[in-house]
């Protein structure tokens, strides 16, 4: 195998795929990127057996062939090269010789045929999505994904295709983020799948602000085509909890909040929320919202912001992190906070199909 490619193109190809390689692999070859040289093209592939990425870049291919090389090391070398053409030749023993001007590296690889095969997607459901919408929806939901390994069905985002809509949901059992997107697909393709966190992180990196993308769903796997890059992943097995039943149907009080003002106030006040309770109180009185926190023997914080509020006086406590997460992710100037009472879930909403359910904290 022999090819030439510019440093920047090579580096961007390696950076697209190197993230899924875990630092501690059970099989040595999983630390490698498979490089396949075809007519005018290079294909890079990596996998950790749960998630895999493959991408294509243009190159001058002088001799076809394939090999695998340690991806982190290779990317580290390429990053340090000066601008210009990189020539790589791999011999039958999978030893790669890399030349760039007067620079020479020799890297030992492993045979390409020992690399795990990349999953095929035949006989699957295909959905066409807008990259910008998916990117936006991931941003608005993914912070709510559970990191509790013992609740593995929550370790990902639910993609629910139903009634010409894609509903994306993430929850950790304490708060829940949800976005609805309009998507065209036949009713026979309605399906619910849970895409694991690692795949979500890769998808967030891959998606751009323009263009379409494809999503393929098979029995137990999912693939995303973004440009010339394909991301595949196992799906999380199991049933996602019924998220609809935790979304309050009742609204007793709706408060309109200036997002940035509210966010910075909660952040400031949270500086004195105790590590133990880790809560801030929202005290609603007529046309006023006071945000308060205190840590015994340390101090307390209070900040008032004017709001339109005509309901009964109410004090509700939240984990400040849970309150701030959606405020950081949303672009809107104004958000709504819907409340029922101090022991019922609050809901953050905006003008578009998004909602965030947040459970309050008990005040002892």
């Amino acid at each position, binding site marked *: 195998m022999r090819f030439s490619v510019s440093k920047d193109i090579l580096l961007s190809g390696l950076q697209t795929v190197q993230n899924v390689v875990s630092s501690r692999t059970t099989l040595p070859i999983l630390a490698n990127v498979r490089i396949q040289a075809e007519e005018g093209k290079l294909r890079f592939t990596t996998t950790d057996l749960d998630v895999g990425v493959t991408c294509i870049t243009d190159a001058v291919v002088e001799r076809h062939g394939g090999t695998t090389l340690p991806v982190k090391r290779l990317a580290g070398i390429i990053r340090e090269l000066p601008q210009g053409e990189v020539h790589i030749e791999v011999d039958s023993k999978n030893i790669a010789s890399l030349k760039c001007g007067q620079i020479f590296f020799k890297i030992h690889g492993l045979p390409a045929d020992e690399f795990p095969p990349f999953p095929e997607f035949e006989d699957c459901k295909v959905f066409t999505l807008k990259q910008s919408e998916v990117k936006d929806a991931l941003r608005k939901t993914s912070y709510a994904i559970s990191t*509790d*390994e*013992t609740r*593995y069905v929550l370790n990902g985002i639910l993609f629910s295709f139903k009634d010409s809509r894609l509903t994306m949901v993430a929850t950790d*059992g304490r708060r829940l983020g949800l976005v609805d997107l309009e998507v065209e697909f036949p009713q026979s393709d309605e399906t619910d799948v849970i895409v694991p966190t690692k795949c979500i992180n890769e998808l967030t990196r891959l998606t751009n602000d323009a263009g379409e993308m494809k999503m393929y769903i098979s029995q137990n796997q999912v693939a995303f085509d973004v440009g010339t890059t394909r991301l595949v992943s196992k799906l999380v097995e*199991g049933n996602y*909890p019924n998220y609809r039943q935790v979304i309050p149907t009742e609204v007793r009080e709706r408060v309109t909040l200036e997002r940035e003002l509210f966010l910075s106030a909660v952040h400031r006040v949270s500086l004195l929320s105790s590590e133990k309770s880790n809560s801030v109180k929202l005290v609603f009185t007529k046309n006023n919202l006071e945000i308060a926190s205190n840590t015994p023997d340390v101090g307390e914080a209070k900040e008032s912001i004017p709001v339109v509020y005509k309901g009964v006086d109410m004090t509700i406590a939240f984990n400040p992190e849970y309150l701030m997460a959606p405020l950081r992710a949303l672009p809107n100037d104004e958000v709504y906070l819907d409340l029922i009472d101090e*022991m019922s879930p609050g809901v953050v909403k905006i003008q578009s199909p998004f909602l965030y359910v947040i*459970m309050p904290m*008990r005040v002892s």
Partner: protein
Amino acid sequence: MGNEDNQTRADFFLYKLFAKHTSLVSSQSFHPRIPHPLSTTSRMHRVIFHVDMDAFFASVEQRDFPQYRGKPVIVGSAPDKRGVICAASYEARRFGIHSAMPSRTAGKLCPHGIFVRPRMEAYREESRAIMAIFEAYTPLIQQVSVDEAYLDLSSCVQKASGPDEALRSALPLARDIKERIQTERRLTASIGVGANKFLAKIGSDFQKPNGLTLIPESEKIMFLRPLSVRTIHGVGPVTAQQLEAAGLRTIGDIQNSKLPLETLVGSWAERLRQRAFGEDDRSLDLERERKSISAEHTFAVDTEERQVLRAALKEMSADIAQTLARNAAGALTVQVKVRYRDFSTVTRQVRVQDPVTAAAEIYRLSCHLLARDKLVSGALRLLGIGVSTLVEPWVAQMRLAFAGEKTEG
């Protein structure tokens, strides 16, 4: 949600397994156990009290809030909330309510019950005051939980000529302790007096509330005869079923039995026989703070049968949940222990964010660990669960009310 799926996964994992015959032995092991320099020796006549407060949490509530007196008081989560009962007053127990029961069930059984949220700090404070009373009688105190302790009074009665006289001469001390608890703390306790911990515990349980039962050494065998095998601490429902299936319903049945108990309950047979004859040489565990709680099953026949392992896990989870409740504690670490045929032993643990209190949650996490690390890779000789990092069971952050969520304590 996650619960069920994890369970299914673990079940699937255990399902692949098969075995012929098994029986379970449960034993709760408490540690650390530190011998005290004043511990009684075998030459002395032993006198052990087991003092057990009557419906402790509920009684404290009834004492502090006169309007609750004579009414069914249920301490724990509200009946419309997920969670369990920590304690119930005797009035509430008449409705079939007992600790560790889900609050919703309790609400159905006793809709007019007074549900109060536990005031753990108050109970702990009360516990300290009661322990202070005990200290006036002996330094040898094993506090089992907030409302229960063993006292070793052997050194007070060494002039006695025989074991029964030693026990009887300690009776005034037991009456005195009860009276002081009643006048100083306005609470009642039941005390069992015996020559060892096993008999003392049987005694305190014999006449509740406000009981005082002495089991003389000369009568202990007759005393135990009519009692169910389930009264023996460590005989859980599964072991009891095994024993009952073999026709051993009462302790008398075990006394009479010529059956090789080893085939029924494995290595526990000898201890079981000792208990049946009222013998127990365990010394008092004088360490104050409980750091961990654990339970283990040794299988009579090594097994990898899914149903047997599940049953063992469920029983141990229930035991541990009960001990947690008695200690008014939740655990942040759950551990499983597996011993294989060749005696190699593996432990695995998981740390959780919210303190675990419920049996179902301990079971779920244990299954998770077994499945995650594929621990049932062959027949097991022993299976155990332990919980540690004990903290207050209070969780301020509420959880979304997904159906099937059983995790909230």
